[in-house]
């Protein structure tokens, strides 16, 4: 009797390749969210996956973009941010003018905005991540961002809890530039300011390509803009991050027996309903969860997930405290780099511009603090 050996392929255990498995995970998660929470939430989750994948794929960094300017006078990251904001603005402002059912990111002009944005700008340099940066790097398995994220959640919750007391220090109502000047004048004015700022940074450059080379970061910026506009069309509100993280904190606090019904922020009818409803019903949470997964998939695809890092005890502590400050300060500032800077400016809110100025000033302090704490990069 002769023995017959099977071909190699038949003897191999059944296994799915890494990339198909990652795609399957993304599609299955999207279908699960759609099945559980409905089409709108499913689409929002899918947009979040796209945002996370783009951010991770081109290492798009709001924090790093500012840092490479402050350290090397390399404007690439800042120019990519302006391109993303400008492209999103060119579509969002006309959409908002034509569709009153859509809402912009209009925050008040307040003392808390100045304080919050300044502190956020400093803390984001220490944690090496802003709102979107902390989320996408946590999705990639970056230990510093993973250490910062729980504090970010707690800080966002507590910041919203204290927001009325901060507003009592002084505030003016939100200013929507399209409502004040008209959609087209506001669009042209903001485009002119972005172009002037871009020209100012470009003329003072001392280097390019120290962090990003080639066109990828600009392609990424345009993709982010399209996805942010898709978020506005699907969710009815601009892309945001911090509110969702605070809601997760509020839910945990409510589970622990904390009564939030008397609070000026979490006691609002809409917020009470969201604390009681599944987290998948909240559009900001759905896009946040999608963003985490998209970054995980992109990092797994490129084989860059879970980077090995040497982190000292002092750096762990600094990352955790910075996370807490990021969350708290971004609630005082009515958003982080996404909700206030990106979405605020791209929907014509004056508070977005003020956020940019105050956070940039904070980053100049944060970059020095980062060097003192011994963080690299």
């Amino acid at each position: 009797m002769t023995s017959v050996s099977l071909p190699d392929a038949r003897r191999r255990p059944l296994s799915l390749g890494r990339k198909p498995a990652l795609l399957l995970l993304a599609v299955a998660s999207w279908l699960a969210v759609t099945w559980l929470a409905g089409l709108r939430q499913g689409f929002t989750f899918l947009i979040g996956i796209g945002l996370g994948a783009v951010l991770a794929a081109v290492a798009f960094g709001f924090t790093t973009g500012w840092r490479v300017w402050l350290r090397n006078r390399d404007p690439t990251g800042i120019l990519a941010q302006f391109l993303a904001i400008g492209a999103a603005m060119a579509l969002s402002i006309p959409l908002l003018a034509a569709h009153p059912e859509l809402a912009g990111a209009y925050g008040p002009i307040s003392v808390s905005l100045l304080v919050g944005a300044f502190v956020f700008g400093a803390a984001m340099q220490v944690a090496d991540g802003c709102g979107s940066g902390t989320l996408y790097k946590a999705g990639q398995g970056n230990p510093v961002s993973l250490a910062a994220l729980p504090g970010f959640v707690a800080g966002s919750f507590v910041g919203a809890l204290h927001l009325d007391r901060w507003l009592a220090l002084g505030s003016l109502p939100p200013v929507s530039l399209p409502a004040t000047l008209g959609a087209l004048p506001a669009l042209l004015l903001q485009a002119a300011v972005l172009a002037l700022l871009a020209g100012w940074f470009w003329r003072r450059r001392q280097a390019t390509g120290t962090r990003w080379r080639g066109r990828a970061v600009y392609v990424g910026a345009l993709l982010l803009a399209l996805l942010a506009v898709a978020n506005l069309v699907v969710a009815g509100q601009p892309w945001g991050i911090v509110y969702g993280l605070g809601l997760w904190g509020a839910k945990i606090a409510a589970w622990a027996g904390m009564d939030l019904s008397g609070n000026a922020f979490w006691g609002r009818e809409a917020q009470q309903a969201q604390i009681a409803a599944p987290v998948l019903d909240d559009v900001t949470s759905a896009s946040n969860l999608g963003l985490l997964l998209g970054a995980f998939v992109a990092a797994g695809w490129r084989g860059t997930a879970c980077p090995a890092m040497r982190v000292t005890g002092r750096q762990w502590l600094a990352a955790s405290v910075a996370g807490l400050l990021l969350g708290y300060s971004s609630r005082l500032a009515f958003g982080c780099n996404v909700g206030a800077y990106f979405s605020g400016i791209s929907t014509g809110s004056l508070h977005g511009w003020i956020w940019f100025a105050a956070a940039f000033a904070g980053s100049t302090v944060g970059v020095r603090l980062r060097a003192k704490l011994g963080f690299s990069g």
Partner: protein
Amino acid sequence: MTQQPKDRNAPAATMAAIFWLLLAAFVAADWLRAAPQRNRFDEPPPLAVGSGPAGGGGHCAVVPVKGR
């Protein structure tokens, strides 16, 4: 002689695995707690644009109610 700070290799994969487990547990526990009160037939239309006034959701720019 100055003492060097104690370096620790970040156990990134373990931290990431714990993170994803905790996140999945949070979403699942939240769903099990809140879903029974949920009306499947009251879901919003797929797109907010063109679907009438949006419900009072949450965004980073939301302000607290005065006078509480």
